[in-house]
């Protein structure tokens, strides 16, 4: 699993280049905020098409994931990420990018153990700990009789 290590390194390097906080933080704010504003525009649009609020929010996330996957495939997302740092990492587009990027990069190792396995190099831990935390939350609710 040394590849995971080097993937981490590559990602770390990609997101922490030019470490100048006074310029990095505003850039992350502007680009991250811009992605969220785009998402809000999508929510408004889907609401106008008649979707209820929670479905509009879900459709917004799915649209952003598809856009991020396309931009990653075309090599655009990584170019933006070079400047935006956390601005492109923290939104759901960054989660999609973290799946698409290794899925594409490790295609050379095969569709099963390359693409299929490596797409979860970073998304996997996010799902493992996110879902586990939600189960723990459910257990706590259950113990306190709020089921």
């Amino acid at each position, binding site marked *: 699993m040394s590849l995971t290590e080097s993937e981490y390194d590559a990602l770390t390097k990609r997101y922490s280049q030019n*470490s100048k906080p006074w310029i*990095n933080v505003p850039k992350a704010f502007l680009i991250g905020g811009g992605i969220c504003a785009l998402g809000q525009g999508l929510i408004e649009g889907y609401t106008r098409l008649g979707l209820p609020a929670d479905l509009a929010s879900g459709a*917004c996330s799915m649209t952003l994931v598809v856009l991020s996957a396309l931009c990653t495939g075309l090599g655009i997302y990584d170019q933006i990420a070079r400047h935006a740092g956390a601005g492109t990492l*923290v*939104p*759901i587009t960054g989660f999609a990018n973290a*799946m698409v990027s290794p899925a594409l990069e490790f295609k050379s190792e095969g569709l099963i153990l390359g693409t299929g396995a490596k797409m979860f190099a970073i998304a996997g831990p996010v799902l493992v700990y996110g879902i586990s*935390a939600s189960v723990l939350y*459910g257990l706590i609710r259950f113990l306190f009789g709020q089921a």
Partner: protein
Amino acid sequence: MELIEALLRAFFVGGLICAVGQLLIDYTPLTPARILVSFVVLGVVLGGIGIYQPLLDFAGAGASVPLTGFGALLAKGVRDAMAEQGAIGILTGGLTASAGGITTAITAALLVALLCRSRDKA
């Protein structure tokens, strides 16, 4: 006018959450993968104790698009499923609520990997 206000609220809140992530990258040894995991778990906690919902009501996509929103969605899924199905909801709620986003990401990642050519990241 209402539309522009909603866009601005999403922009500022979403931007601030990303700025926090950038501060963590610049000032702590946290790697991006750890930041993603931390944000999702933080979202579950904030969603669980009820702090995140007001932020969602205020900022819309500004709170739902960052990964903290994904965490809050997992917590909300568990809460809703428990209200409907009881204890089984502890195990079904999280993935049920987030199925759309996760399935879209998996399918999109596979399609892009099949259709696009890998490029060097020099």
